[in-house]
């Protein structure tokens, strides 16, 4: 027993000289940057979203940019009011934002679909080329619903 303890102590003492083990870190998904704050595909000038949101999808459809977000915590009326003010500042019509609240009263309260002019990539940040950040997903990415 004493021999084993001595062996363990010796192993611990020499361990710093053997180099560091290298974990992969791959089991913790990275938090992607907020694409709007990063300015990958900027919003029209003046359109500032001053409520908690997360971008869900982004892309161009029929010559328009379709940006889908979810908003959190606020009542639909409050979000509608803030959106209306932001759209007015940007010179966009009220109908450019479609607000759909969820039925349950959870932290995520509903969806906002914004119909905007097409935007071009305006940042050289490498994250802006990652669909996980931009939410512009390639059509061949499978839904994350299969059990594996």
């Amino acid at each position, binding site marked *: 027993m004493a021999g084993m303890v001595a062996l*363990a102590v010796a*192993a*611990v*003492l020499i*361990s*710093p000289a*053997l*180099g*560091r*083990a*290298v*974990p*992969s*870190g*791959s*089991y*913790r*998904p*990275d*938090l*992607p940057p*907020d694409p709007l704050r990063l300015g990958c595909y900027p919003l029209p000038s003046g359109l500032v979203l001053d409520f*908690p*949101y*997360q971008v*869900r999808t982004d892309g161009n459809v029929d010559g328009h940019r379709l940006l889908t977000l*979810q908003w*959190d*915590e606020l009542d639909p009326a409050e979000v509608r009011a803030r959106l209306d003010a932001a759209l007015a500042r940007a010179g966009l019509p009220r109908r450019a934002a479609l607000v759909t609240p*969820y039925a*349950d009263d*959870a*932290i*995520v309260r509903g*969806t906002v679909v914004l119909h905007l002019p097409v935007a071009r990539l305006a940042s050289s940040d490498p994250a802006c080329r990652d*669909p*996980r950040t931009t*939410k512009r*997903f*390639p059509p061949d*990415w*499978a*839904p*994350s*619903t*299969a*059990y*594996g």
Partner: protein
Amino acid sequence: MRGRLARADPLLTVAVAVALAVKAVLFARIADLPFRGDEVAYHDAGCALANLVRDLVALRGPDTSELARNVVGNGWFMPGMGVVLAPFYLLAPHAGDGWARAWLGVVSAVVFVLAVRSTQRTLGRGYALALCLFPALVPVWVLLSLTAYGDLLAGLVLVILLGRLVETVRSARAGDAPSPRDGAVLGVLGITVVYLRSSASLAVAAVAVLAAVLLVAQLRRAAALPVLVAGAAFVALLLPWSISASVALDDRVVTTTSVPTSLANTFGDRSEVCFGPCDPGSTVWFAPVRYAREVARATGQGEVGVLDEMSDHAREDVTAHSYARDVVRNFDRYRRIDGFGSLLKPPDAPYDQGFWQWLARDVSLRIFTPVSWLVAAALLVVSRRRFGDQVLAVLLKVGLLALLTQPFAHLAGSRYWTTAGALGGLAVVLLGRTVVDAVRRAPPEPGDEPSRLLTVAQWVLSVATVTVVAGIAVLAA
């Protein structure tokens, strides 16, 4: 150790040697298999914990971000297997996965031998022999003993805990109170099971509470100190994890954070987990965490709380029928224990062909299926002729039933049986003894007279089991 075992019982030594020989043969087949799936997470935890020791010895500050990312991660896995792997990566920081598998094989062999020896001492030779046959000779169990998954080790440690609890309760009837040291050992064994596989928490809690009640019923105040010491040891060793995980994730974590997501994926609408579809191109486990982190950033809430709300949302349309149907599917998945037989398959070989696939899949199922029916029978029969058997029966049934709640809460996989499987061999021996006693009607030895309370408790467990099974079957229809 082997020498002492040989003097004690040649048959048991042979049984252990056969089990270990099978392990050595199967190791040769998978020695070059890289870690995959959740094994990677356990590897990472082992590396980071080894680096922590290195840093402390070199009087450097620990790399807290490495620890948070690799030991706590998403808070899914308690670091029991990380602790098992840490000594290996302390001495061999750059070793390949094959060597790590060899280390895991040695650790699981040592724990297996300890479990057999402990069972021989606490429950008797028959039970120890049973452990050497089932699960130790099921090829796929042996394969899993060479992986970094903690389910199997958790089962073996649970067997040790169960045997010691039975021994303690039996001694209590003779008036022998356990010492505080006994209590501490039981607490350490309990928390070890939980660290190795947090889903076994319910089983540990169930057998521990039941044993504590039986001890208090027999010893009154003399049971208080050892029970309190056991609880204190358990909590004291749980706290380092709970505190570190809570700090790293900035939310309250006790054991694991995976329950809400697993409930959502198992019973809810997977296309609603992220209040709609999660981002594509990932898995049902990672995509929700990434989304929860985004919501947490937007709102300032903790990601664990967000995951709870996501789960509630995804499960809004769950009905009794859909839940029962999913439980039945889960049990089907749970029984398909041959899934990991593919470990023996060379990457380019057909999935179910060749001798090794036959051994790993067909042979495993041929052993498992009849044994699982015997275990089911053991859960239903009532031992009522000997107190010693009754104590084991009640604790074993409660432990098994608690482990079998897993398909009620989590997508079942083909390795989950290995935790309950360790108790399976014991249950078959218990069934045999109960049936033989019922036929022979031999009078119990003095001091081993049966307890009416334990008979009633078993009836309650049997009726509850039948009711739940029938209820799920009716609801799922």
